[in-house]
């Protein structure tokens, strides 16, 4: 597998493909089974957010290195309406749609580093890190 790959995120089936690729990358980075499942689940959450609320975008998957440890880095970006109140969006149970409201906050707990950048009208970019 290449070290970096960018996948489109336009339809529901793209999420399935992203999950599979992230799992593969996590296996390649030799993450433990629990860590693999966590980063895959986080990718699934964020990708679905980008698709449903952001109208689609793309997902970058990278086999990276963090302080000498093998890591998987994901950057999921959309060009949607953005998030007005990031702090509120990260509260457990808050949703602007019909979900459980745990996608963003839950994903933050699933990964080792979570970085959310968003501006109203300028889309949302989420960076996720999971290392060994």
């Amino acid at each position, binding site marked *: 597998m290449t070290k970096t790959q960018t996948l489109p995120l336009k339809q529901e089936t793209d999420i399935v493909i992203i999950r599979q690729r992230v799992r593969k990358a996590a296996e390649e980075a030799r993450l433990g089974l629990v860590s693999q499942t966590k980063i895959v689940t986080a990718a699934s959450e964020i990708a*679905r957010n980008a698709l449903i609320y952001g109208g689609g975008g793309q997902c970058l998957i990278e086999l990276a290195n963090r302080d000498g440890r093998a890591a998987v880095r994901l950057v999921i970006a959309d060009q949607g309406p953005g998030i007005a109140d990031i702090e509120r969006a990260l509260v457990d149970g808050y949703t602007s749609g019909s979900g459980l409201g745990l996608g963003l906050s839950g994903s933050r707990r699933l990964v080792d580093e979570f970085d959310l950048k968003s501006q109203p009208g300028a889309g949302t970019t989420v960076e996720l890190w999971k290392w060994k």
Partner: protein
Amino acid sequence: MSVSQLAELLKQNEEQILDKWLSAQRAAGIRFDLIDERNVQDNSRDLLKAVIMALAQDADDFDAPAWKPLKAQLERLSRTQARQGFSASETATFVFSLKEPLFELIQNQSQYDNRVDLVWLVNKLVDKLGLFSVEYYMAGREAVIREQQESLLELSTPVVQLWDGVLAVPLIGALDSNRTQIVMESLLQKIVETESDIAIIDITGVPTVDTMVAQHLLKTITAAKLMGARCIISGIRPQIAATIVHLGVELGDVVTKSSLADAFKLSLKELNVRLVGNAR
């Protein structure tokens, strides 16, 4: 003008070109396991006719309407070949092998002093057609892939009756499609039909449980509860359990068991069924 000149030349030598083209194809190798000689001949003849027709309209711009019938024909051909299992290069070779007989023909026309122009024209034309055929071939392949993706998503998951009053749904694969909805609805339907008290939802075969999957599960469990049936979730693997906890999903008072067998045992116990082995 060289385009009309070329059209005239091709028209006069149509049979000869066709023969040579076919032998060039044979030399490159025809997949007789996928297509028979008759079809190859018919396809080649039709395509050559379409080329001549397009050229005769003196259009050297491939986007011009004169080229439409030819493109349509090429599209049909390439898409069919994609479905029949031809490789991309085999599909392209069909078109590219037209070059040799055309070059040869032009070379023999010593009366023309613009042979280089004609060769260049033919070269551009055949290259373009080759690219088109590859593009259409890819489109055909993509259509096949999409169909397969959809049929995979629609793989139905059966609701099975394990015991009088006990149903089970072994869920398999990604659960974030409409498929989940269908499965869950059929479970509720089956609960009514069989008047079951207990439904076991087995997620051993579900690779990822995210909030959407969890939400689907919780909704189904609530709906089943309203209908007087209890649900047991089985097959939660350790890594899935850890993930659910970190996600913050509350399963509330949902009964969970690590395996389908355990869930089945529990349901028999709740129904006051005792299995008795043969005493020896």
